[in-house]
């Protein structure tokens, strides 16, 4: 029984971080129909931001999180202006963005490798290796903090989408781009803002992962498949779905890791991806595909 609780706690901790990693990806797809394969590479850029802030000046990664968020949001604005804005009217936009973001991922990876070398890094504030004990159950502080901050950020994001004027515009554009434009929404500006927010979330997720996982520039290839499985399972574009899928799959993965073997735990995500695509391609919270 204790082991079950222990494994569940570890799963929840990871789920929180994955939820934040995936929600930016989901937002960008929902509004812009951009399948952003560069998202995890930008998470790594955020992780490096937090890492160097801690290493050079001893700034806590939870503080560097704000720097990483703003820095990556600014990079998001640049990427959008350079690559995505001019092509937005193309009929093959989504397909094009797959290739485009694949290329961006390689450029980001190369740039990070050139600047910071390809060594494994991990930010090491004191809490990263510490834990709370409840009897025999331990709760790693690093994962706990990362998970809690993730949930806080996702909560803020949800409130922002639900209540703010820009949030209304983002949701409306996600659900019906033409209708939003007809009602006076500047859909291009909404696209730019949601791209910046999405990439900013990658920065925040990076700062948190920097002390939960060890990372190096090419690590994003491992994450993209995991994140895609979360986003597809949640229903492409549904942030709520991504969060639910993150927790569900992370907990299952933790159990697979504990009882089947740790090398198999990543398989959980791929297996889930297969099953979802076979039996419920629209995902948990996605729309049924139109027949037309």
């Amino acid at each position, binding site marked *: 029984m204790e082991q079950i609780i222990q494994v569940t706690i570890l799963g929840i901790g990871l789920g929180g971080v994955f939820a934040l990693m995936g929600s930016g990806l989901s937002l960008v797809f929902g509004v812009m129909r951009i399948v952003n394969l560069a998202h995890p590479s930008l998470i790594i850029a955020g992780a490096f931001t937090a890492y160097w802030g801690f290493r050079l000046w001893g700034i806590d990664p939870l503080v560097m999180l704000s720097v990483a968020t703003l820095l990556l949001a600014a990079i998001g604005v640049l990427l959008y202006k350079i690559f995505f804005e001019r092509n937005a009217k193309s009929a093959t936009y989504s397909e094009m963005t797959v290739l485009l973001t694949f290329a961006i991922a390689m450029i980001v990876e190369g740039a990070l490798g050139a600047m910071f070398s390809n060594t494994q890094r991990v930010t090491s504030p004191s809490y990263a290796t510490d834990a709370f004990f409840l009897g025999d159950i331990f709760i790693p502080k690093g994962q706990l903090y990362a998970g809690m901050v993730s949930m806080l950020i996702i909560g803020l994001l949800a409130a922002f989408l639900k209540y703010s004027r820009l949030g209304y515009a983002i949701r409306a554009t996600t659900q019906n781009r033409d209708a*939003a434009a*007809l009602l006076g929404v500047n859909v291009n500006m909404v696209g730019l803002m949601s791209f910046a927010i999405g990439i900013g979330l990658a920065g925040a997720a990076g700062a948190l992962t920097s002390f939960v996982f060890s990372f190096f520039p090419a690590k994003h290839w491992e994450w993209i498949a995991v994140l895609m499985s979360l986003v597809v399972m949640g229903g492409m574009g549904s942030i709520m779905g991504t969060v639910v899928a993150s927790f569900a799959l992370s907990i299952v993965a933790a159990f697979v890791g504990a009882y089947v073997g740790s090398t198999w735990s990543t398989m959980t995500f791929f297996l889930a991806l297969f099953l979802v695509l076979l039996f419920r391609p629209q995902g948990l919270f996605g729309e049924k595909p139109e027949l037309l």
Partner: protein
Amino acid sequence: MTEFLKVEGITAGYGDGPAILDGAHMTVQQGKVHCIIGPNGAGKSTLMKVIAGMLPVRKGEVIFKGENLKGLRPDQTLRRGIAFVPQERALFPKMTVRENLRMGGYILNNDRERDRRIDEIFDRFPILRERADQHAGTMSGGQQQTLAMARTLILRPEIVMFDEPSLGLAPMIVREMFAIVRMIAEQGVTVLLVEQNAVMGLKHADWGVVLDLGRTLFEGPAQEVLHDPRIQELYLGGRKVA
């Protein structure tokens, strides 16, 4: 007859494609219901999209209260008082009825005023108040159409354009839709209507406009258009109409 909105010699099409409208014209009188009829592909919806600023004008003019609307974007025509409900109703399925209405007032900068107007809408359409917190996508077709039409009123427009509000609705519900159209017109709002069912549309309209192959065949008081022999030919006979 007040010169309210005037459409003259409009040529327009999609992208680089062929001209769908090829010299269409129509006159719009303030406070009246206008019904645009014509066979499939005549350019009825395209004409509305041109007026709304969703499609660029290649040739011709759209003059609204003395101002040429050429080159305006949809949000700009909206600010001038022209609202449009396209065929697919343009709702946000995963937003509640209230949120959809709020989006209708997106360009209003005063939230309190917007919410006050939403309250007025609820008074006029009690069914929408009942469903205020329900997702728009889960409502029936008639309720969705009611919401789409009511949503345009938040901005207190001068002209509303409805593209086939009866599409896919049961006959009884269609009658309700036309009652709403009447009610809107009685408030002094000018209505433009595209209707596949010509007889039904003209019966509820003051003015009829007949389009075919991108041109205006003729326009006139709805009753006269309804009984014009050319209509019979257009719908039943060949294309020998002059």
